[in-house]
């Protein structure tokens, strides 16, 4: 299978502080990968670099075979729209309904031609969105079991519900890859477990590749095929989740 994410020897720093020091890995289509490591190890930065939310200073990153460093804005958007993104917090627009937030997932798909750019304006809210998009958004909410809260405002939802809305928005994109930065970190243990379970189940069902970072070693092992551990900007471990020594990992990274 072809690699859909390729990172070759990437380096990144904030000012004079190096954050990533030569990170290389590949992710194949359909694979799920968990990233672990202590705070400041570079997990979030790596994720932000993969999406070109931060610039790298050396190395190469390719998504779906396109090197993202040199893409024009429109090419970057058409690459990004194949990637669903879920952050730890503040994913959703607080004052809009859950449904509107899910409808936003279609925005990326709507920038490729001038006609669709115009129709993109209708996607600012579920009220103006066309029937096709609204129904699709309802389906996505249904897949995360939130159809009954579709019209609730996002800021009235619990942390776990918000993350499920964010997942529904990612599904709305019909992505080939989902990247999640500590999606369970701000949730209580039960909600965290639910969200992670939902992630891995939906990705497996739809054949979507998944990269997520976490502090929870059992999540990293239970919900991914493969895991990578990071330590001060470098990958210190990369292997199948079945073959790692859980006790040794917990001693080192927990």
């Amino acid at each position: 299978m072809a690699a859909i994410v390729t990172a070759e020897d990437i380096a990144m720093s904030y000012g004079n502080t190096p954050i990533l020091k030569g990170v290389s890995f590949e992710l194949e289509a359909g694979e799920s990968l968990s990233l672990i490591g202590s705070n400041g190890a570079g997990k979030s930065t790596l994720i932000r670099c993969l999406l070109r939310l931060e610039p790298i200073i050396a190395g190469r990153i390719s998504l779906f075979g396109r090197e993202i460093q040199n893409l024009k804005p429109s090419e970057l958007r058409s690459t990004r729209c194949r990637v669903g993104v879920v952050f730890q917090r503040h994913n959703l627009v607080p004052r809009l309904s859950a449904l509107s937030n899910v409808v936003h997932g279609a925005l990326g798909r709507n920038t490729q031609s001038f006609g669709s750019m115009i129709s993109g304006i209708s996607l600012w809210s579920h009220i103006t969105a066309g029937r096709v998009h609204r129904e699709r958004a309802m389906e996505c909410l249904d897949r995360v079991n939130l159809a009954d809260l579709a019209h609730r405002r996002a800021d009235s939802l619990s942390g776990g519900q918000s993350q499920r809305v964010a997942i529904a928005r990612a599904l709305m994109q019909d992505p080939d890859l989902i990247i999640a930065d500590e999606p369970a970190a701000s949730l209580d243990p039960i909600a965290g477990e639910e969200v992670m379970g939902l992630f891995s189940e939906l990705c497996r069902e739809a054949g979507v590749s998944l990269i997520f970072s976490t502090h929870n070693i059992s999540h990293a092992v239970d919900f991914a095929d493969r895991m990578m551990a990071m330590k001060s900007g470098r990958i210190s471990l990369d292997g199948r989740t079945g073959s790692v020594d859980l006790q040794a990992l917990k001693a080192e990274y927990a």
Partner: protein
Amino acid sequence: MHRAAVPPRFGNRPIAGFLAVILFLLVSAWCFGGSGFSIAQLLGSSEYLLRFLREAFPPIDEHRLTFEQFHRYWLALIETFQMAFAGTLLGLVIGFILALFASRGLMFESPRSNLLQWSVKMLISLFRTVPDLVWAIIFVMVVGLGAFAGTLTIMVDTIGFCGRFFAEEMEDVDRSSAEALSASGARRFDTVFAAVVPAATPGLITTSLFAFEKAIRSSVVLGLVGAGGIGLELQSLMNWMAYDRAMVIIGMIFVLVLVVEQLSSYFRKLVMKNEQQ
């Protein structure tokens, strides 16, 4: 021997503070001197105030205020309201568009766009810092006497007020939800309207209501320079020393401003309450 450092609060502050107070008192004395403020003069002129009050009350004397006159004042009051409303509406729309470009890192993010942002900010400042009466005089000169000049004045004043505060409200919005959308391929334009504007909406609404209150108050005086509305009637009555009828107009203005302020504060509270739920 090692000298202990002086704690910051025992530094030079007391002397600096003392000098600041002295400076403040000196500036105040200087300004009162220049302002011609005089209690003696105020008390000495009570006679004129009494005359005004005596002639102004009772404000409605049937021999002096005809129904036709009252009807004319009423129409002028309506015109004042119309000017304020139409001018505010135009100003809100244009002010919002300018604010999008005046807001730091909102529509574009590049060194060149900083220049654009700065220029738009300066334009808004120009609209805001030139007083409304000066704009009114200019517009009366350009489009002639009447309500249109007043409407344009209110519009420019509202652009200056709303352009600034709209931009600040959109700058204050947490950009992380916009970033989440742009990370998944949305255009910047879409992220602004799908994520930033909805989050700023309560602030935009309350600012708009304040702008309308402000417009009502200023539309009352625009008539003084011929820019339409009830101010013109008031001025001519004062010139003719028809204080009783002037008092009627002052009363009408008072009621209009009061009603608009009450309504505006009611709607503001409604917006706030909606946000707290």
